[in-house]
């Protein structure tokens, strides 16, 4: 299978700020790649280079086999972009916005209209179709902007934080649309700060921080990278903490972390559900009063924290210019 997006050593500087610092990325055709990173990581900058809005200072990139610098015009005919901030014209109606984009993709008058109506239907904007978008809610604009990216049925689609600012219901709706699209064969590069979104949608995740990819793989691979399963339990008293600790020492494959104040223990283990059953049997045998117990895998949050040294949503790096 060919690669839809290839980046080799992309560098982009803004004065002294290095937005991209040797970014390497490969997105195979027909897959979803999630670009995950804190504020200022360089996600938007990368998307801008791929969509020919910005020229890199060094390195090279191709999209659909076309170079972003030398084949820019041909490339633009193959991609769709929905930027971080919805770029809809507020004086035009929803329909006029899409039709304008269709005409500029040179779909022809008839096809452009048909396609616009089709997309308005699909994004649940039929009722608002003939109203100026000035009166649209943030979520409606976002949906219209995504629709605009899809007008020409692009083979490679770029969505920069497509669900930021959407309510939970709209977000779920957007996820469905995105999943459907890719089932149709579109390649998608998606940036997000929501780990759940990357977990749910992406075939492959690239974690980026300070302009470079610091980890890559499926959500599972990334989770394994920061650590395997662990048993988490809370018990009734400080005395129980000590008893539980010695009872479970046999199952632990690493150091048991004890939080005395909350009477909680975290025990790294391996072996899946049977370990959990065994643990409960051991604790019961010692008469430990267990309040809560569970077998947990690291979340992408843990991955993120472990890799970047800071959480996704509480990052302090740089401004949020995007």
């Amino acid at each position: 299978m060919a690669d839809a997006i290839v980046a080799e050593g992309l560098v982009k500087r803004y004065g002294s700020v290095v937005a991209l610092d040797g970014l390497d990325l490969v997105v195979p055709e027909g897959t979803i790649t999630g670009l995950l990173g804190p504020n200022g990581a360089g996600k938007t900058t990368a998307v801008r280079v791929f969509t020919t809005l910005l020229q890199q200072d060094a390195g090279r990139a191709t999209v659909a086999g076309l170079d972003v610098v030398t084949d820019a015009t041909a490339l633009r005919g193959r991609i769709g972009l929905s930027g971080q901030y919805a770029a809809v014209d507020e004086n035009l109606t929803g329909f006029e916005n899409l039709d304008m984009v269709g005409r500029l993709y040179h779909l022809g008058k008839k096809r452009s209209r048909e396609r616009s109506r089709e997309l308005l239907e699909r994004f649940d904007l039929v009722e608002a179709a003939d109203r100026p978008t000035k009166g649209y809610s943030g979520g409606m604009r976002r949906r219209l902007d995504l629709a605009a990216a899809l007008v020409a049925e692009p083979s490679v689609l770029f969505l920069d934080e497509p669900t930021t600012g959407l309510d939970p219901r709209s977000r779920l709706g957007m996820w469905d649309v995105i999943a459907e699209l890719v089932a149709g064969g579109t390649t998608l590069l998606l940036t997000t700060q929501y780990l759940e979104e990357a977990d749910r949608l992406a075939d492959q995740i690239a974690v980026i921080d300070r302009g470079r990819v610091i980890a890559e793989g499926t959500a599972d691979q990334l989770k394994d990278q920061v650590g395997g399963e662990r048993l988490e339990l809370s018990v009734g008293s400080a005395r129980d903490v000590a008893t539980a600790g010695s009872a479970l020492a046999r199952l632990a494959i690493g150091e048991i972390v004890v939080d005395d104040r909350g009477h909680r223990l975290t025990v790294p283990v391996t072996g899946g559900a049977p370990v959990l059953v065994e643990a409960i049997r051991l604790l019961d045998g010692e008469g430990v009063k267990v309040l809560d117990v569970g077998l947990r895998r690291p979340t992408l949050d843990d991955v993120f924290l472990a890799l970047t040294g800071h959480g996704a949503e509480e990052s302090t790096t740089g401004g949020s210019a995007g």
Partner: protein
Amino acid sequence: MNGFAQALGDGAVVAKRNLIKIKRVPDLLVFSTLSPIMFVLLFAYVFGSAIEVPGVDYREFLMAGIFSQTVLFGATITGSGLAEDIQKGVIDRFRSLPMARSAVLVGRTTSDLVNNALVIVVMSLTGLVVGWRIHSSVWEALAGFGLLLLFAYAFSWGMAIVGLVVRSPEVFNNASFIAIFPLTFVANTFVGTANLPGVLKTVAEWNPVSAVTQAARELFGNTNPAVPPPDAWPLRHSVLASLLWIAVFLVVFVPLAIRQYRRAVSR
């Protein structure tokens, strides 16, 4: 479809989009005509009695000047419109589409030309109300209006460059205000150049705005053949001078504006 036809088609799509805005936000047109109407009234009634122009009635003299000033202000919409589009991310959308690189600018300048034509109609009616008359043939009068509009069109490409560089409609509006006032006042627009002091007189005589104003005045028949224009080449050959200025503006501004557009990315 060949490249040129496609570029024109793309430009037309963008122009249509801008014209829809004029339709949806009519205040824009109202306000861009209100201030020149106010100028006509102020100059005609307040200054008109104090300003003497040899050989013609001041109101007749005044109108061509006000037309020039108005179309130049109209041309600044090109810059503020582009700056606004950059700010709102619309230019990013356009730049990601496989459309002609010139289309956004061609569309913008064209729709602003249409806007200026509408403003001129309103202004002419106001002028007729305060006593301005056209004394030439229909063809000459149309040539006069055409020349004013063409001049503004060429000028709007310059405004496009500034708008793309400053990228903020507010900054652009302040900057263009500061530039256009001297450009349209140090000229033969509201008073004759004859009594201006030394350097100012030369500047006024060679100001492109003076050439086009003089040309419009002559084409509308608002000059007195008994009183020849000042002895400066651009005013003696005002139509030719205006056409030359238009050509120079287009040759210089169009490529520069397109180059600047290619680089314009919102922050």
